[in-house]
C-alpha cells in the first residue's frame, strides 16, 4: 500500500513540507483549519530584508500545492482524533461543511455581493467587514467560497414554521427589502399580517435577550411586508410550470391560504372554498382592526390570490356540497376549516341573555353587525381571543374585567396584548374561575366565581389551578363573554368517513397531514385545535408539500424531520466577537395615544418607518453567522452552493505527521500601559501590516482611526508583551525587530513626509542581510532608533499618542500621530488541544517541544511526528521553510524505513 504523510497547518512551513514530499511522489494530506492555505505569510504586505511582496512570492507556492496531483489540500478541516504509531497512524479529520462545492466553485465572488451579513474580517484583523459567504482574501487557495455557518440562529430555530428570521432581518439591514419579503413568503405567505399578530417565539429565542432586549423581529416582518407593497414592488411571482391537476382547499384561513399559495406556485389549479364572505379565517373574524387592519389583510390576501388561485365565498362543505363531491372534481383536497366553534364554560346560567361567546362576539364586530353589550363586562379566559374580546368591549365603552383562573404569568395571550389591555384600562381578576352566572329576569346580574390557587404543573407545564374551598365571591356584571377555547365545527363538515380524534378535531398523520381518506389532507386549527397563525401557515406548507408529492406520483411517506443543527448560544457569539457585544436599545414602535385607544379601532402599534427598521435590524448580532437567507445559491452561476452539506469525518492513514500550525498574535489590550483599544491611534503591528497592504482594509493607506488622516510621525514600540516575564512571555519573538524596521521603511515609501522612530530593547538584526537592512533604514529612510522601553499615553484633545521613554536614565516623552505595537507572537490557541490529541509535549511557553533541540530540532517526542515553523518556537520565514523541508526529510525517512512510499 502506498504510504502517505499528513501535514497539519497550511502556512509556509506546511506548504514547503507538502511540496517537498509530493515532488518525490509521496502522497500528502495537507490539513488546514481555515478556508484557505497561506497562513500568516499571506497577511504580510512585504517581507524583509528584500521587501518582496509577500503574497506575490507565496501565492505561486499555494497554487502549486493545490494543483499538485500528490497533495490533497484539505482546508476548513481539523484533527479530531489520532491513534496508531509511526508508519501506521490513524487520523480522524473533521471536514467542516463549507456549503460550497470545491469542484464547482470558481471563486468569481458573485455570491459575496448578495450576502446581507457583515462580519469582521479576521484576515484584515477585523479592520473591515466581510460577508458570511466569503473567501478570506483575494488570492485564497482553494479559490472556493465558504459559508460561515456555525449553526442556526435561535430565532430561526424557534419559529414554528421554520422561517429564517435571521435571514430576513439581515436582508432588511442590507436594505434588500424585496429579497427579505421573498424569503418570508417562502414560509409565511402573509408577511404584513404575521408580523402584526404573531406571538413571535423567535424574539423569545433572540440571543440579545440576555444582553438588553430581543430584536423586534416580528415588527421588522410587518415593516417589510408593508414597505415593499407601498413601494409597488410586491408583484406576483411568475409561475413557470403549468400542471393540470386540481386541488380543492376548504377554508381560507392561514392554513388554507398557505397551502393554496404553495400549490399555485407549483402550477396546480387551486380552488379555495370559503364558508364565510371574507378570506383570512380567524385573521378576519377573530382579530380586531386595532391589531390587524382589514385593509392590510385584504391587500396581502389579494396578492396571494393573484397567483391564479380561484376562491369561492359562501360555500360550506357539508352544506352546499359534500366532501365526496369535492373529491370527484379534484385530485386532492385540503381541509383547513379552522376552529370557530366556541366552547362553553359549562356553568349554570350560560343561556342567559347577555352571554356572548368570544368568537361570536368578535365575528359580529368584524361583520360590522351591531352587538349589544352592557356597561359592565366580564371576559372569561386568558388567551388572545379573551384579550381581543376585552379590548374590543372596552372600545365599545364598557367597563371590562378579565377573569382568569391562573396568574398573569401563565396567560397564553401574547405579551403585547396583555400590556395593551392593561394600558387601556382592562381590569384583571386573576386566580378566579366562574362557577355560576347569576341572572334576574332572564338577564345577567352577576357572575359568581371561586378563588383558585396554583398547584402542581399539568400536562402543559403550567401549574394546575385548584379551587379554594369556600372562597366564592361575586362580581356584578351585565355581560359575560366566555373566551376559553374553540373547536372545529365538524358537524357542519358532516362527513362520516373522516376519522376524528377524541378531542373532536380532525385526525391527520402529523408527518404528512393525510387523513384516513386517500387524497384528503387536513391541517391548521381543525387538526391541532386552536393554535397560532404561524403554526397554521406551517401546516398549510406541509400539506402542500405532500399533496405535491402525491400528485407527482411520489411516496408521501413522512420525511424524517432534521433538527440536528447546533443552535447558536450567547456563549458562541461572545467567543466569536471576542466578548465585544455592545448594548443597543430596542427601537420601540410608535403607539396610538392611550386616550384614543379607548374609543377607536385604529391600529395601536404603528409599523416601523424605514429608518426605524434599519436601526432595529442593525441590532441583530448575526448569530449564524450565516443568516440562512439563501440569497447566495441563486446568485451562483455554477450551482456550487449546497445548503445541505454536512460535516464529515474522514479517516486517514499516514505513516508520518508533520505539525506546522504557526502562531497567533498576543492581544495587548490587557497591558494598559500601551493604550491599545483605549487610544484610537494605537495599532498592533499586524493591523498596520494590513493597512499598508494595497489589498487591505484601507487600500494601502495608513490612516488614523481618530480622524482618517495619515500620520506624519510614527512610533514603533518593540517587545510589547515579549521579553516580559510579567505577562508570561520572557522570550524574544525573533522577528519583530526586522518587522518594525520594514514597516518603518514602507511608511516612508508610502508617504515621503512620514518619520518613524523605533523604541527597542536590543535591535536584533542578526541574520543574513539584516544588519545592512537596519543601516539602510537609518540612512535611506530616515528611521530613528531609540534604545528604551516605552509606554503610551494620549493627548486627549488631538488623540495623539504620547510615548513615554527613558534615555540615559531620564524619563522623556514625545507626541506621535500614531503608535504601532510589536506584540508577542504566541502559539495558536488550540495548540494545547492538538498536543493532547497527538500526545506531544509543550514547552513552558506553549510551543511544541523538540526533546533534542540541539541535534534533532523538529523531532517531537512521539516517533513519526515532526515539527516545523513557529509552532515549534520563534522562527522567521526562511527558517520556517528550512524546517519545513527538514520535517519532510524526517517524514521521508520514516516512509523509507516502513516499507512503502
Amino acid at each position, binding site marked *: 500500500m502506498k504510504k502517505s504523510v499528513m501535514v497539519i497547518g497550511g502556512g509556509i512551513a506546511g506548504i514547503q513540507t507538502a511540496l517537498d514530499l509530493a515532488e518525490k511522489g509521496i502522497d500528502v494530506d495537507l490539513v488546514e483549519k481555515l478556508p484557505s492555505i497561506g497562513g500568516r505569510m499571506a497577511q504580510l504586505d512585504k517581507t524583509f530584508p528584500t521587501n518582496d511582496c509577500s503574497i506575490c512570492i507565496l501565492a505561486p507556492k499555494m497554487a502549486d500545492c493545490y494543483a499538485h496531483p500528490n497533495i490533497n489540500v484539505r482546508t476548513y478541516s481539523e484533527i479530531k482524533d489520532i491513534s496508531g504509531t509511526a508508519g501506521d497512524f490513524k487520523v480522524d479529520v473533521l471536514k467542516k461543511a463549507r456549503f460550497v462545492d470545491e469542484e464547482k466553485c470558481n471563486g468569481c465572488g458573485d455570491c459575496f455581493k448578495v450576502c446581507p451579513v457583515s462580519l469582521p474580517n479576521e484576515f484584515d484583523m477585523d479592520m473591515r467587514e466581510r460577508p458570511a459567504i466569503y473567501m478570506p482574501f483575494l488570492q485564497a487557495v482553494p479559490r472556493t467560497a465558504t459559508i460561515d455557518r456555525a449553526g442556526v440562529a435561535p430565532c430561526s430555530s424557534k419559529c414554528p414554521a421554520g422561517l429564517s428570521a435571521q435571514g430576513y432581518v439581515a436582508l432588511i439591514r442590507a436594505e434588500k427589502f424585496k429579497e427579505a419579503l421573498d424569503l418570508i413568503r417562502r414560509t409565511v405567505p402573509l408577511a404584513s399580517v404575521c408580523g402584526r399578530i404573531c406571538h413571535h417565539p423567535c424574539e423569545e429565542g433572540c440571543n440579545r435577550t440576555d444582553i438588553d432586549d430581543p430584536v423586534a423581529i416580528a415588527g421588522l416582518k410587518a415593516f417589510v411586508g408593508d414597505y415593499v407593497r407601498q413601494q409597488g414592488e410586491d408583484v406576483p411571482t411568475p409561475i413557470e410550470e403549468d400542471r393540470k391537476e386540481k386541488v380543492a382547499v376548504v377554508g381560507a384561513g392561514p392554513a388554507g391560504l398557505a397551502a393554496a399559495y404553495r400549490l399555485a406556485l407549483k402550477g396546480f389549479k387551486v380552488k379555495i372554498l370559503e364558508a364565510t364572505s371574507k378570506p383570512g379565517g380567524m385573521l378576519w373574524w377573530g382579530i380586531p382592526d386595532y391589531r390587524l387592519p382589514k385593509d392590510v389583510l385584504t391587500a396581502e390576501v389579494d396578492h396571494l390570490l393573484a397567483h391564479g388561485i380561484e376562491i369561492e365565498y359562501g360555500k360550506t362543505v357539508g352544506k352546499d356540497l359534500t366532501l365526496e363531491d369535492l373529491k370527484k372534481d379534484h385530485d386532492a383536497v385540503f381541509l383547513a376549516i379552522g376552529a370557530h366553534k366556541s366552547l362553553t364554560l359549562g356553568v349554570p346560567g350560560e343561556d342567559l341573555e347577555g352571554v356572548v361567546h368570544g368568537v361570536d362576539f368578535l365575528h359580529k364586530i368584524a361583520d360590522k353587525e351591531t352587538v349589544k353589550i352592557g356597561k359592565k363586562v366580564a371576559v372569561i379566559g386568558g388567551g388572545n381571543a379573551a384579550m381581543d374580546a376585552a379590548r374590543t368591549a372596552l372600545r365599545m365603552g364598557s367597563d371590562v374585567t378579565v377573569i382568569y383562573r391562573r396568574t398573569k404569568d401563565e396567560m397564553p395571550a401574547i405579551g403585547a396584548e396583555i400590556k395593551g389591555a392593561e394600558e387601556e384600562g382592562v381590569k384583571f381578576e386573576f386566580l378566579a374561575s366562574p362557577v355560576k352566572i347569576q341572572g334576574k329576569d332572564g338577564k345577567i346580574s352577576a357572575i359568581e366565581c371561586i378563588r383558585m390557587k396554583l398547584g402542581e404543573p399539568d400536562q402543559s407545564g403550567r401549574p394546575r389551578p385548584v379551587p379554594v374551598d369556600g372562597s366564592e365571591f361575586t362580581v356584578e356584571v351585565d355581560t359575560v363573554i366566555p373566551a376559553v377555547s374553540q373547536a372545529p365545527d365538524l358537524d357542519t363538515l358532516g362527513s362520516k368517513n373522516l376519522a376524528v380524534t377524541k378531542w373532536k378535531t380532525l385526525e391527520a398523520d402529523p408527518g404528512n397531514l393525510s387523513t384516513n381518506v386517500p387524497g384528503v389532507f387536513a391541517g391548521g386549527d381543525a387538526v391541532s385545535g386552536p393554535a397560532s397563525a404561524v403554526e397554521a401557515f406551517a401546516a398549510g406548507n406541509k400539506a402542500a408539500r405532500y399533496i405535491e408529492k402525491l400528485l407527482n406520483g411520489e411516496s408521501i411517506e413522512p420525511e424524517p424531520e432534521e433538527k440536528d443543527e447546533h443552535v447558536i448560544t450567547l456563549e458562541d457569539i461572545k467567543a466569536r466577537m471576542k466578548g465585544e457585544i455592545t448594548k443597543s436599545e430596542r427601537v420601540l414602535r410608535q403607539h396610538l395615544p392611550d386616550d384614543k385607544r379607548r374609543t377607536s379601532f385604529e391600529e395601536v402599534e404603528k409599523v416601523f418607518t424605514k429608518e426605524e427598521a434599519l436601526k432595529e435590524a442593525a441590532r441583530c448580532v448575526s448569530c449564524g453567522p450565516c443568516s440562512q437567507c439563501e440569497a447566495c445559491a441563486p446568485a451562483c452561476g455554477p450551482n456550487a452552493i449546497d445548503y445541505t452539506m454536512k460535516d464529515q469525518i474522514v479517516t486517514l492513514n499516514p505513516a508520518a505527521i508533520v505539525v506546522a500550525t504557526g502562531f497567533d498574535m498576543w492581544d495587548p489590550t490587557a497591558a494598559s500601559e500601551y493604550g491599545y483599544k483605549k487610544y484610537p491611534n494605537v495599532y498592533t503591528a499586524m493591523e498596520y501590516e494590513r493597512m499598508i497592504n494595497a489589498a487591505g482594509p484601507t487600500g494601502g493607506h495608513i490612516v488614523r482611526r481618530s480622524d482618517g488622516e495619515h500620520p506624519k510621525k510614527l512610533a514603533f514600540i518593540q517587545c510589547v508583551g515579549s521579553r516580559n*516575564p510579567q505577562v508570561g512571555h520572557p522570550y*524574544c519573538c525573533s522577528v519583530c525587530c526586522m518587522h518594525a524596521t520594514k514597516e518603518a521603511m514602507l511608511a516612508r515609501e508610502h508617504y515621503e513626509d512620514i518619520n518613524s522612530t523605533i523604541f527597542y530593547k536590543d535591535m536584533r*538584526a542578526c541574520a543574513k542581510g539584516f544588519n545592512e537592512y537596519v543601516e539602510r533604514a537609518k540612512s535611506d529612510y530616515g528611521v530613528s532608533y531609540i534604545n528604551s522601553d516605552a509606554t503610551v499615553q494620549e493627548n486627549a484633545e488631538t488623540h495623539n499618542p504620547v510615548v513615554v521613554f527613558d534615555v540615559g536614565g531620564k524619563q522623556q516623552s514625545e507626541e506621535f500621530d500614531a503608535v504601532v505595537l510589536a506584540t508577542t507572537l504566541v502559539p495558536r490557541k488550540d495548540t494545547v488541544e492538538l498536543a493532547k490529541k497527538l500526545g506531544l509535549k509543550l514547552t513552558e511557553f506553549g510551543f511544541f517541544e523538540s526533546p533534542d533541540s540541539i541535534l534533532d530540532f523538529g523531532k517531537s517526542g512521539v516517533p513519526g511526528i515532526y515539527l516545523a515553523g513557529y509552532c515549534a518556537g520563534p522562527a522567521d520565514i526562511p527558517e520556517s521553510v528550512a524546517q519545513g523541508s527538514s520535517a519532510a526529510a524526517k517524514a521521508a525517512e520514516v516512509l523509507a524505513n516502513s516499507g512503502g512510499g
Partner: protein
Amino acid sequence: MPENTSTEKEKPRIGVFICHCGSNIGGFVDVKAVTEYASTLPDVAYATDNLYTCAEDGLNNIKETIKEHNLDRIIVASCTPRTHAPLFQRTCEAAGVNKYMFTFVNLREHCSWVHMKEKEKATQKAKDLVRMGVARARFLEPQEETRVDVTPTALVVGGGVSGMTAALSLANMGFPVHLVEKDKELGGFVRSLHALMMTTKSANETIRPLIDKVNAHKNITQHLSSHVASVEGFIGNYDVSIGGDGAEPKEVKVGTIIVATGAVPLVPDGLFGYKEHPGIITSSEFEELCNKKELPRLKSVAFIQCAGARGQKVSYCSRICCNVAIKSAIHIAENRDNILGVTEEKAAEAGEAVEEPAAEKKAEEEGSERRRRRRGRGRQAEDGAGEEGAAPSSGVEVTVFNRDVMAYGVENELEFNKAREKRVKFVRYGPDNLPKVSVKDGKLEVGYFHETLKMERTMPVDMVILSTPLVAQPDAATLSQLLKVPLGQDGFFQEAHVKLRPVDFATDGVYVCGACRGPADIAESVSQAAGAASRASIPLANGFVQAEALTSVVDETKCTGCGTCVEVCPYSALRKNDEGISEVIAAACKGCGCCGATCPEGAITMTHYTDQQLLAEAKAALEEV
C-alpha cells in the same frame, strides 16, 4: 527541437474561447462583441463565449469543438494562467492537441478588474488582447518535454554537523552518499569547542552520537582528508573527482550535491589590541583554553562583542556570538566543570573560597530554574548591573560589552536572563564609542563610555575575550567556481531566494546548508541540513527530472563559441561542447531568456517564446483597428 512540425505547413485552425467568468469579465467587457471580433481574425476557425470556461461544460465544449472543427491551436481568454493554464492544457491534451499549442489571454486581472468603470475601453482592450493572442498562436509549435535520468547518489561536501546531518538523512532515505571532509576526522568547527548552550555535555560528547551514526551507516562513503577537485555535468549526472592528500583522485557519479563547508572565525588582527597581550584572545581561543584546562587565574573578564563585525571588518552581524559569549560568561560565573582550573588547595593558598556547587545545591538550583525562567529579569535591572552588584559565585567579574544582545528566540533570551541573574554585567557601547583595550604596567584594562553617566570609565581586567564573527571558508570561492554556484557579497554561499528557497541554489541539483551560507547555530544548521537533504532527495527519489519545454535552443550554424551565454546563464544550463559550440542542458534550463537576449549572433531562440511569436504579438498590439 521536435522534428514533427507538420502543422507548420498547414494553415492553422485556431479556436478561441472567451469566458464571462460570471460577471467578473462579462460585467465589464462586452464578451459577445469580443467573441464576434475574434471570429473575424485570421486563422480563427471557431470562436465562442462561455459563462465559465473552467466549468465542466466549458471544458467539454473545448474538447468537442476541437474534434468538430478540427482545431489545432486553442486560446482561452479568461483569468490567470497561474491557476488555470494546467487545467486547459490538460483539456487540450485530452482532445489530442499538444499542450504547447494552447495559449492564455488574461481578460480578468489584465482587463476587466482594472477597467471596471470604463466598459467600452475595456471591451476594446479585450479585443486587442485577443488579437495579440491569436497573432502569437499562429506561430505556436508542439513541443516535447525533456526527461533526464538521475543517478540516485548524493555528494555532501563538508563533514561538520551540517554535512553529517544531511548525509545521514539521505542515507536513511536509502540513497548512497559520498561525504567529503577536508579534515582527517568528522565533526567540523564544533569539535574545537569546549561547551555548548542548553546542555551540560561537552561539545564533543554532544556530537559523538551523530558521528557514530555516520560511521555506522552503510550508505555513507566517507572521504576524509579530501576535497572536491573537479565537477562536470548537471543535475542528475555529475561526475565528481575527489582529491585526497597525495592519493589518486577518486571519480564518483552523483545526482545531487549538498554544500556544507561551514565557516571560520575571523582573526581580529589589529583590533582591540589582539596579540598585544596574552590576555587578549578570541572566543574560539577561549574554547581551546577551556578544553585544555589552561585558563589563567581570573578575577575579572571582559567580552567584547562584534569584534570586527557590524561595520568594522565585515558589515554583518554574525548572529551566534552574543549567545556564545552569554554561554561562556555563565560558565565562568558558575565555574562550570571547574573551567577556571582552581583546585581547593590552590584556592586555600590564595585564601579564597571557591564555590563548587555541591550535589544537593545543584539540585536545588535546577528546582529554581523553572521559576527563574518564568520570572526573567526586567530590562531596568540590567542597567544597574552595569556598575554595581555582587560578583558571580565563582568570584570572577564578567562584563560583556555589546551593541545589542542578539539573544533571539526562547532559549537564548532565557540564557541571557540567567547570565544577568548570575551577575554577569552587560554594558552597551555605540558604534562611535568602541571599548578601548589597553595595557598599563603589564595589566589589561578596558576603557568605555558609560551611557548613563555620560563619561569615560576604565575597568581593570585579567582577560579580554573578543567575540569575532564567523567568516566564509578561505576556499569557498574555489568550490563556488567548481559548482558554478554564487557567493554573496560577504563571501558566504548565496541561496536561490532569501525567503522561500533558503537551502537551494538557483542551479538545480545543488543545495546549501549550515554556516557556509551564513552564521548559524547548531540547531539552525541541523534544520537546514535536513532541509537540504529533503530538497536533494527529490530528483534522486524520482530517478529523473523533467523540464517544461520552455528552453533555449542554440543554432549551431550561427554560434561562434564566444561563450557569452555560458557566462550570463544564472542556472548553469549552458556549456560548450567538444567543438567549442554552446549547447543547452535542457534539464537545467529555466527558459529565462537571458542567453537569447545576450547572444551577439542571434543564435539562441526560446522554444514556445520564439522571436517570431513575440514579434507577431507585439505587432498585433500596435495594429490600428
